[in-house]
């Protein structure tokens, strides 16, 4: 990126990409003393050209690279791609497969939100142990996923037409046990961190994003819902089993860093409810509709939308009758939220010391925004 001009009387600090709190991006901070006047994001450090890679893979091979977009949230990303293939093919998965998909997606939403929560606490610089707690609790989820799919991360379990395998015997009881344990842990987190005076001081009223700005700037996911807009693809445009499941769209009105954190926290509770529903009420039947391994899809275009942990992911797939997609346009949620982040310094006063808190409250995933 060629750097924008710096205004007189401001100092420019180049923050990242090697800074422990910045992630794999560089952020230019134009500061006057302690106050940040302008934020400029320099993206592209993890650009791998996934959209081009997908053009050179068959439809099924593409499931593997696309899950590398967000490693803590592979299930939701992979599902978006698989749904696009299914729609282009005109294949419907069996009901049981839809329910299994919803359960895995919710596990990964919790996984991702836990990571975001741990990082935001770490960004306040007071409580380094919390990130370790959340990492240990994520093990519960990863162990359950390993039993179901055979892999802890990025397991490519979703196939066009269903899922790879049925849930093993006795798995539902283990899920319910895990849910019960996590519920207890989240109560402790809430008491220890969210209602903690120091943590409140560092997060409340920081980087306020008002409702109309969130809509105008194209925010998505917890950033949008933290500003009081109840948009969630799972409700607005139900996919997998979300039409049959009972859950609420969580919003918070304040629009500050704390509101975004609380949205994630309450979403974890909703996800646990969904997982419990799936474990108790999952319908029987097959888990996969057979489709040929080497697909050709007639010329068409489909746009699938899923709600990932970071917001709405859109996969706009164009096919031309060949074995590979002609073009895959990925509408990444992190890129949209990074634009909001760039504008935040104009909307609210941000202090230099708060920048790590602000960026982690937005929770961007740079491999997602760079693709």
């Amino acid at each position, binding site marked *: 990126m060629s750097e924008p001009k710096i205004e007189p009387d401001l100092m420019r600090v180049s923050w990242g990409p090697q800074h422990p709190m910045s992630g794999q991006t560089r952020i230019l901070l134009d500061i006057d003393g302690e106050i940040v006047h302008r934020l400029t994001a320099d993206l592209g450090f993890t650009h791998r050209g996934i959209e081009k890679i997908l053009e050179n893979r068959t439809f099924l091979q593409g499931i593997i690279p696309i899950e590398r977009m967000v490693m803590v949230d592979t299930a939701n990303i992979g599902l978006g791609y698989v749904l696009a293939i299914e729609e282009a093919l005109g294949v419907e998965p069996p009901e049981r497969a839809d329910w299994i998909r919803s359960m895995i997606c919710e596990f990964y939403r919790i996984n991702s939100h836990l990571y975001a929560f741990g990082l935001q606490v770490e960004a306040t610089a007071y409580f380094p142990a919390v990130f370790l707690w959340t990492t240990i609790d994520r093990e519960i989820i990863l162990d359950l996923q390993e039993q179901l799919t055979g892999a802890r991360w990025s397991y490519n379990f979703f196939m066009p037409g269903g899922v790879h395998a049925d849930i093993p015997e006795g798995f539902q009881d283990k899920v319910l046990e895990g849910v019960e344990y996590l519920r207890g842990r989240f109560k402790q987190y809430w008491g220890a961190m969210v209602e903690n005076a120091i943590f409140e001081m560092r997060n409340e009223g920081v980087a306020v994003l008002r409702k109309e700005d969130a809509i*105008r700037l194209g925010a998505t996911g917890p950033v949008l819902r933290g500003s009081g807009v109840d948009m969630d693809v799972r409700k607005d445009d139900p996919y997998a089993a979300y039409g049959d499941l009972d859950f609420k769209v969580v919003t918070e009105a304040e629009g500050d860093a704390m509101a975004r954190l609380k949205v994630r926290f309450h979403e974890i509770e909703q996800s646990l409810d969904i997982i419990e529903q799936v474990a108790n009420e999952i319908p029987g039947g097959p888990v996969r509709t057979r489709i040929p391994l080497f697909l050709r899809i007639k010329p068409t275009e489909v746009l699938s939308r899923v709600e990932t942990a970071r917001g709405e992911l859109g996969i706009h797939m164009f096919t031309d009758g060949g074995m590979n997609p002609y073009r895959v346009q990925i509408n990444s949620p992190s890129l949209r939220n990074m634009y909001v982040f760039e504008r935040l310094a104009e909307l609210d006063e941000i202090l230099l010391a708060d920048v790590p808190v602000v960026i982690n409250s937005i929770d961007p995933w740079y491999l997602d925004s760079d693709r």
Partner: protein
Amino acid sequence: MPEGVEETFVEAVRAAHPDFIESVEVLRPRRVSLVGKREEFLGLAKALKDEFGFTHPVSAGAVDYLKENRMRMNYYLMNPSSRFMLILGIDLPRDDLTLPSMTQVWEAMSFHERETREMFGISFEDHPNPISLLLPPDWKGGYPLRKDFEGEETQP
């Protein structure tokens, strides 16, 4: 969400701005595709925002149809109350890849237009900050997402 909002929108936009529109159709429930005419594209975008409430920008990107010698630029838009996805497209001949920047209407299209510019070589007039977004500043390899792009082999 009320049923049939997509059809209502299609009829309303057809009646209000027949001169701005090449084609408009409901692809499936909650997906509407609208292709605008090139001369009136900025006017169409402003009308969609002011008259039809598409205030929430989602994304933008392009597709290269090499055999037909054209590119299709797509803008993805959302109305926060009716909540269906509008794909606003425009066809550009490959030898004249310019269009007015939609940042004049939706500020947040900035990142997406910067990315499309470096990946496809479409230039956006009056873009406030037309620099590359993802590619390195010294990139000289061409436009990677074009269909006639030939990558270089990496050195061993």
